[in-house]
């Protein structure tokens, strides 16, 4: 049932995404042409290191609290007196570094992923009610139409994942949390939207977060709802996809428009689009299923855009039948308008499919298997015939393709295995390791193209280069790798001192990765951070874009010390990475103006 469950809580607050923007520009990855001004903030006439060059990658929950607690009987509490869960703080980890927000690659910034997040519900007395580790997940349905603002300030996206390693405190004071504890099988489902992100001034790097937590049940998808999925029919639509789930037992249908509608920036609630209604079928034969009441102040903060229809009653037999068999439509009818307009609709055949996980980082020879999950009108599609095809984001002539295979048919749960096996990417981009690929998928039984239906719905793969490491690595062998990170992340790893802001005092990095003495003196900490699992918030590098071969090289250099007890400073120079830093002529070093350009860079559909 996921978070679209009668037992759920909504929360709202702010988040901080302290991402470095130096690495938003592929040109900045080129050690040969790197310029110190790439570490300075943008100013009129010069993009420099864009708008937040001193970012650290940290992602934090700020002043978040539960705004509503929904219970099994359909009641919703919005005050602490009604349910003790309301008002409790939703906080990040209390005993390790902050989570990180990480692009897959400068060429694919449309699946930024949160790593190392722990979510805690803590009451006023500091008592833990529940906590869990957010399984790393990328955002989905990134769109730039949330408001009339520009750039990332008008962006909105959602993250959906599960909280694992759940630890419960005493939740007896809250009916909602007690029911959630009873319903969940060791994990919780979480979804949240991020919007109203600020790119300058005092609040630079901060935005709004609104979300939902509910029980996760075994066998469910972890990163999407096994339900009904509606999307706008044209790419120029100001709306984004809508997720629904029909609850047959309770004769209700959940509609989640949290990421789908535009905002009224003055109120922070959904912009007034008139009457929002859900129906099954189209035209005169459509069966109305209810109206979404998005009125009232702070409606969005208290609902996260999740509504249960029909309000105040249950679905009739006829409505239930229509909802089961016909495509759903969400329409809006402005006051005085003659007819409603369609905001989003389900595909005619009701087929929807997702792959999870859908973002991969793979070394040559490595293989990972994902689940391709196909549904039809929300039910598993048994016996569908899947296919998938990879395409590089750039330089198709010189980018070897990974192998992508699928099971011949989906099983009774609508699932088929999709396996990606990486080969040597052969360094087509020169100064950026490997290549990024989009992998489109589909099933023969449906004309629906998943990435045509929803432009976010494809697999992203970062496939690394092979590397022949030198037998006894020296500083010269590893320096180009460290140097690139020193360039791209100046506050934690760059020059000492680092003074990006005119008239303000400089800061000192944690370690200057461009400096042998600094790196050698910090060796034990770097070894620790390089050896951590990718899900750990202190994993190094923050950007999770270091190939296994290069990681092994760095660790060997750090551990295989010379006679002086320090990592080897000089000697022979033999390093594929160092040799291959020259950009190919046909790889553009022009900066992408915004992330919007990137999400349009989706691979062609197949299937």
């Amino acid at each position, binding site marked *: 049932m996921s978070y679209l469950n009668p037992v759920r809580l909504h929360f709202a607050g702010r988040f*901080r995404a302290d991402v470095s923007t130096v690495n938003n520009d592929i040109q900045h990855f080129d050690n040969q042409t790197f310029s110190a001004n790439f570490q300075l903030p943008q100013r009129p006439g010069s993009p420099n290191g864009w708008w937040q060059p*001193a970012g*650290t990658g*940290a992602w*934090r929950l*700020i002043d978040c609290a539960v705004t509503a607690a929904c219970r099994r009987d359909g009641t919703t509490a919005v005050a602490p007196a009604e349910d003790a869960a309301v008002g409790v703080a939703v906080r*990040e*980890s*209390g*005993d*390790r*570094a*902050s989570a990180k927000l990480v692009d897959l690659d400068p060429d694919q910034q449309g699946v930024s992923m949160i790593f190392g997040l722990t979510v805690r519900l*803590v009451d006023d007395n*500091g008592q833990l009610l529940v906590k869990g580790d957010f399984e790393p997940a990328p955002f989905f349905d990134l769109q730039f139409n949330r408001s009339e603002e520009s750039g990332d300030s008008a962006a909105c996206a959602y993250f959906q994942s599960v909280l694992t390693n759940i630890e419960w405190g005493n939740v007896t004071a809250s009916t909602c949390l007690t029911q959630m504890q009873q319903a969940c099988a060791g994990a919780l489902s979480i979804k949240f939207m991020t919007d109203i992100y600020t790119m300058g001034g*005092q*609040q*630079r790097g*901060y935005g709004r977060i609104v979300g939902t937590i509910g029980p996760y049940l075994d066998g469910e998808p972890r990163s999407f709802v096994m339900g009904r999925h509606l999307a706008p029919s044209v790419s120029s639509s100001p709306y984004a996809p809508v997720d629904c789930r029909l609850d047959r037992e309770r004769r209700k249908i959940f509609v989640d428009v949290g990421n789908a509608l535009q905002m009224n920036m003055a109120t922070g609630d959904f912009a007034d689009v008139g009457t929002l209604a859900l129906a099954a079928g189209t035209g005169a034969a459509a069966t109305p299923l209810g109206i979404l009441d998005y009125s009232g102040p702070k409606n969005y903060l208290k609902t996260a855009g999740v509504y249960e229809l029909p309000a105040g009653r249950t679905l009739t037999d006829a409505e239930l039948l229509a909802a089961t068999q016909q495509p759903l439509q969400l329409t809006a009818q402005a006051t005085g308008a003659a007819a409603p307009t369609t905001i989003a609709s389900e595909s005619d055949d009701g087929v929807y499919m997702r792959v999870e996980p859908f973002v991969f980082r793979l070394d040559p020879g490595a293989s990972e298997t994902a689940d391709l999950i196909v549904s039809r009108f929300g039910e598993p599609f048994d016996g569908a015939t899947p296919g998938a095809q990879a395409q590089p984001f750039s330089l198709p002539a010189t980018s070897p393709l990974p192998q992508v295979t699928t099971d011949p048919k989906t099983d009774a749960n609508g699932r088929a295995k999709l396996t990606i096996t990486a080969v040597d990417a052969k360094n087509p981009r020169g100064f950026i390791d490997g290549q990024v690929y989009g992998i489109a998928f589909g099933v023969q039984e449906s004309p629906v193209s998943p990435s045509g239906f929803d432009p976010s719905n494809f697999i992203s793969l970062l496939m690394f280069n092979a590397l022949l490491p030198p037998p006894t690595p020296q500083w010269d062998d590893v320096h180009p790798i460290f140097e690139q990170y020193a360039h791209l992340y100046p*506050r*934690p790893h760059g020059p*000492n*001192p680092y003074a990006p*802001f005119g*008239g*303000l*005092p*400089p*800061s*000192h990095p*944690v370690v200057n990765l461009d400096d042998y003495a600094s790196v050698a003196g910090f060796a*034990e*900490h770097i070894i*620790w*951070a390089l050896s951590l699992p990718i899900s750990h*918030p*202190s994993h190094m590098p923050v950007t999770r874009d270091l190939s296994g071969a290069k990681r092994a090289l760095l660790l060997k250099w750090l551990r295989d010390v010379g006679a002086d007890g320090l990592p080897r400073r000089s000697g022979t120079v033999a390093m594929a990475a160092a040799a291959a830093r020259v950009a190919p002529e046909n790889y553009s070093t022009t900066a992408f103006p915004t992330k919007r350009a990137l999400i349009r860079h989706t691979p062609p559909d197949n299937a």
Partner: protein
Amino acid sequence: MLRIMAQPLSSTEDLRNALQNAIRLEHSTIPPYLTALATLSGNTPAVRYARKVIRDIVSEEMLHMTLACNVLNAIGGHPDINGKGFIPSYPHELPMGVAGDLVVHLKRYSKALVENTFMRIEEPEIPLNIPTKRTTLALEVAAPITIGQFYAGIRAKLVDHPELFTGDPRLQVTGFFSGPGENIAVTDVPSALLAIQTIVEQGEGTPKAPTDLQNEIAHYYSFQQLAKGMEIVHDPASPLKFSFDPGKPLFIDDSNDVIQMVDDPPLVVYDPADWRAEQLSTECDASYSRILNALHQGFNGQPDKVNDAVGSMFEFKTILGELLQQKLTAGPNAGKFAGPRYLYVG
């Protein structure tokens, strides 16, 4: 000289309480030292030298805290690192401090801060006078209750009661400091005495030398370099084998080399116009709290969590660095820079 209140040492529980207070005491020096260190923003050789002096001392205070935890764990106690009152509410006396004797503030680096606060914290019972060109010295009079005496009391109690060493050896935290023989496990009387000797001598030196067990300059004298404005060098001609060298001056320009941080940030209310200063202060508090929470777990059965504390320390440095770049635009402190509060937030 810093005087502290005598601690009861009659019972085992008294001894454990005294060691818990020792942990609090060793920790309580870190925020003021760290703050001064972080405000040293210049890049002259003297600033780099001063930064290294303070950074090394902070690192040894962390070691002392670790060793005190190891001793407490060795006798079956449980270090409490993340209680609400663990961090002093600066400005405040140090734990066990005599009221009004030495109030420790959170201030930007200055020679006066080093001389009047940091050196007093680390002051030996009888400070040795390291000569500048062989001058003579006057000895200070010992106060009745000193940190040295406090640790001497703990030593005596431990020597008398070897049967107290019943703690679980798996609780010992070792391997986090690189100095030889420093970060030892404490399992019996000899190892406990070695740990305490390291704590005392790294701060104060020995009665005969300004160096510690590891032959490093003790904190008091190391700070004294900054107060005197010259480096200590080896000097065979000196009776103490060390001299201050006027040929190696340490000049730090208070206006250009030091971030003009507000005094005692916990007492400052930022104007709403300085939203970011307040917000980063809150993130700094949360970050420091994460360090203490991880250390608490590290010293209470999950030694690996000390790694997470170290990882959080690096993050703390980046947050603190950004906080200290927040120039206040409004209110009585306009023109000065924001600073860390070290408020525990759970």
